[in-house]
């Protein structure tokens, strides 16, 4: 039963990735103008355009190009970035993307490592003392933070920490040789911005699910058995609240990988999202496709992990009758 569930989810994940790859391919082909035109610019004559298009393999039928691309992606070959190709020095996309992925993962994991425990703790704290001043403060401030757009939070932080206090640099541009303290200083502000946004959701979800479980008869039973409050929350309630909480965490992490465009833009952080925006601007379609596939894959993988976690935390699914 559990293996079947696992296999089923796995199949769905693969199908999702496939469907998304088709959509991405169609979407990028719908963009007006192509890279050959951009490269040639004002020098474009019909002849030179056709020659460059042939060289780039753009004269093939769409479905042929799709399957060629799919085959390459499946073997780990993301192709060549089309920008710079005309000039003769083609860069493999893998080479462009690799440092960006590293940067994005560095930022994401830093946010995750700090934000998830803090958010879970605050959510549980609010759920343990519902209706108190502490709870109201937490709920009220998270509600506010969810409502404020991320660029405003980022700008505000820059204003305070970079402009007034002058403690931190206002941009987080990495040269690649930062280590230790320098790296932490550079990452501090984007991390803080993302943490605020991500943890607000996790806090609210944790509080709501745990509170919901806390009003169940089995928690009342635990109270009447004389079980201490801390154990009730950590053992009786949390175990039953894992499913929804893990899901909201997974969604937030996936959002971090792909959706941090604005934050990366504001802090000039060289992450994956910023790379994709730049690629769109120069119509570097293979690069756009590669980025999109990575974002989608990270969503699919994280949601898959979350699903597995909620299945494994439920004995009804682990041990069917």
């Amino acid at each position, binding site marked *: 039963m559990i293996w079947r569930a696992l296999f089923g989810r796995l199949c769905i994940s693969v199908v999702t990735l496939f469907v998304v790859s088709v959509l991405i391919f169609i979407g990028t082909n719908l963009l007006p103008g192509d890279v050959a035109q951009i490269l040639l610019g004002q020098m474009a004559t019909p002849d030179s355009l056709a020659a460059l298009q042939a060289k780039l393999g753009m004269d093939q039928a769409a479905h042929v190009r799709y399957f060629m691309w799919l085959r390459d992606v499946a073997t780990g070959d993301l192709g060549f970035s089309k920008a710079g190709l005309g000039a003769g020095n083609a860069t493999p996309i893998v080479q462009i993307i690799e440092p960006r992925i590293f940067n994005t993962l560095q930022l994401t994991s830093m946010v995750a490592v700090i934000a998830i425990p803090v958010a879970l703790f605050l959510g549980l704290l609010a759920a343990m003392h519902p209706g108190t001043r502490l709870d109201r403060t937490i709920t009220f401030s998270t509600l506010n933070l969810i409502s404020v757009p991320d660029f405003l939070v980022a700008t505000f932080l820059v204003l305070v920490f970079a402009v007034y206090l002058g403690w931190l640099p206002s941009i987080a541009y990495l040269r690649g040789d930062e280590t230790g303290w320098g790296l932490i200083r550079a990452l501090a502000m984007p991390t803080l911005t993302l943490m605020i946004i991500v943890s607000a959701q996790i806090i609210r979800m944790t509080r709501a699910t745990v509170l919901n479980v806390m*009003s169940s008869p*089995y928690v009342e*039973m635990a109270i*009447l*058995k*004389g079980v201490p409050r801390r154990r009730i929350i950590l053992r*009786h309630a949390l175990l*039953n609240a894992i499913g929804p909480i893990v899901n909201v965490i997974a969604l937030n992490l996936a959002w971090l990988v792909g959706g941090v465009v604005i934050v990366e833009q504001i802090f000039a952080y060289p992450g994956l999202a910023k790379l994709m925006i730049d690629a769109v601007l120069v119509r570097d379609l293979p690069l756009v496709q590669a980025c999109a596939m990575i974002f989608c894959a990270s969503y699919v993988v994280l949601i898959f992990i979350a699903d597995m976690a909620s299945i494994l935390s439920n*004995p009804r699914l682990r*041990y069917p009758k």
Partner: protein
Amino acid sequence: MSILLEVDDLKISARKDDDSLLPIVKGVSFKVARGEVVALIGESGSGKTTIALSALGYTKPGLEFDGGEVRLEGEDVITMRSDHLRSLRGQRVAYLAQSAAATFNPALTIGEQVTESSVLHGILSKEQAHERAKVLYQALELPDPERLGRRYPHQVSGGQLQRLMAAMALCGKPDLLVLDEPTTALDVTTQIEVLKSFKSVIKQEGSSAIYVTHDLSVVAQIADHIVVLYAGEVQEYGTAEQIVSHPTHDYTRRLMHAVRPPPAAGQGDKTSSEHKRQAPALEVRNITAGYGRKRDGTTMVTVLRSVNVSIERGQSIGVIGESGCGKSTLARVVAGLLPPTEGEVLLDGQELNPALAQRSRNELQKVQFVFQMADTALNPKQRIDRILGRPLEFYLGLKGKEKRQRVGELLEMVELPPEFAGRYPEELSGGQKQRVNLARALAASPEVLLCDEVISALDSIVGANVIDLLRRLRQQTGVSFVFISHDLSTVASFADEIVVLYAGRVVEKGSTDRVLSPPYHPYTRLLISSVPELRVGWLEEAMQTQEAQAGIDRLVTLTEIGCPFFDRCPLAIKDTCDQEAPPIRDLGEGHLISCHRPESEFLH
């Protein structure tokens, strides 16, 4: 006998939104001696659970202690410090809740939950606690004590879970048990077994108990003293014998009156013929149905097998059996919620479309469903006039003044005042909500009403009133009723005919009189003899019968060959009953019994 618990002028109030206090318990006093069982009895809203919980120094959220004392061995638990209170709970006083299914944490093993309290309080080590749990499993006659602790709550049956809760409560050897309606949600056959284990285990362990219930017959089996409560006040307080045999207070007498007499011949509506016609109003022919439809048209789990039932117009038919016997499945098939794999449903001689989605509006109108839980069946965001108005619009095309007038008539029919039209369901009591639920079904002017356990969740007095109402509605409107219940007494008081289902097969059917008088099918007899009687000492007698020896409480197993009742039947013939499908014996006047034994050998 020394006094263990003394409740002295206890007052508990609810804090309302405007911060004023609403008294719920208004000065209640009683005592529990060591080794004694005291029953708190009353209908819902009488404050019985609230009072019982005070023995643990606990009030439900929104309630607070407002005066008086609850002394456990002389020490007041109301004013006790919270860490003392915590060490008292589960150790000196233990609680058993009504629904074990909801009270067990689905994510933890049974063993952990049973032993948790005594391990946490440091009474027993983990190993000792698990040993003690095994002893208790054995004493409570639970299967496979060695491995039971490692299983999860969803892996055992409801009756077993109820007994496991007793093990959970007893594990820490408490002085006082608080039992809150522990058998109300169970089948009669399960109830009798659970009651028996509770009683013997309480005796063995020498514990005292507070037993909360609304069922006088159950109390008569287990209590030494009875406290009768109404609206948070004690109405009568005395020994069980005295209250059951010589009640002095009016309210106690009303409670006794609402206890349905044990099912026997001579009740029921006889064959009511006011609305009789040529063709039966509803006919269920050869229905086989189940869940998990496979490609070849059969089902993974087949619940109903070759079921035949027919109802005359204006009559009521009772469908009875334990949980899992297919009662609700039958109703779902008739309503079109579950298309059968074989057989057909006829209404006024016309075949109904098997699937709900394909039924015409006219067909939908004629068959209406009344669900068990009015709480969940009525939309809490809609006012009563809207709930009743919707079917009037949809089926009858009524609008404006006509519709309003009809809503008024419907409310009058179910004996509710017309101003209820403007109220929301949450402003109504449980009985009133069930009446609205009925009115909603009647609004469509149906020909057949499917009532699935409609009074099972109601108190005895309220339930008895709803039955009276149903009887009147049947006479007035000529609607045919399919009345589904696990409670034989309820069915006996209302139905013209009874169909006894076991494991999805009809084992006996006929007029109420014939079914409830000998000769019985062995299963019918088991059901009848399991209904508690309102007298002290009934439980002990019942446990001596032939049926009890054969095994009263067993899981109903769905078998494909032979008679499914084989493993519980005192009359089973080896190599016959488990191999061959039993023949249907016609005892005349439509009384059918499906059994291998000839008529002369049936139990009397």
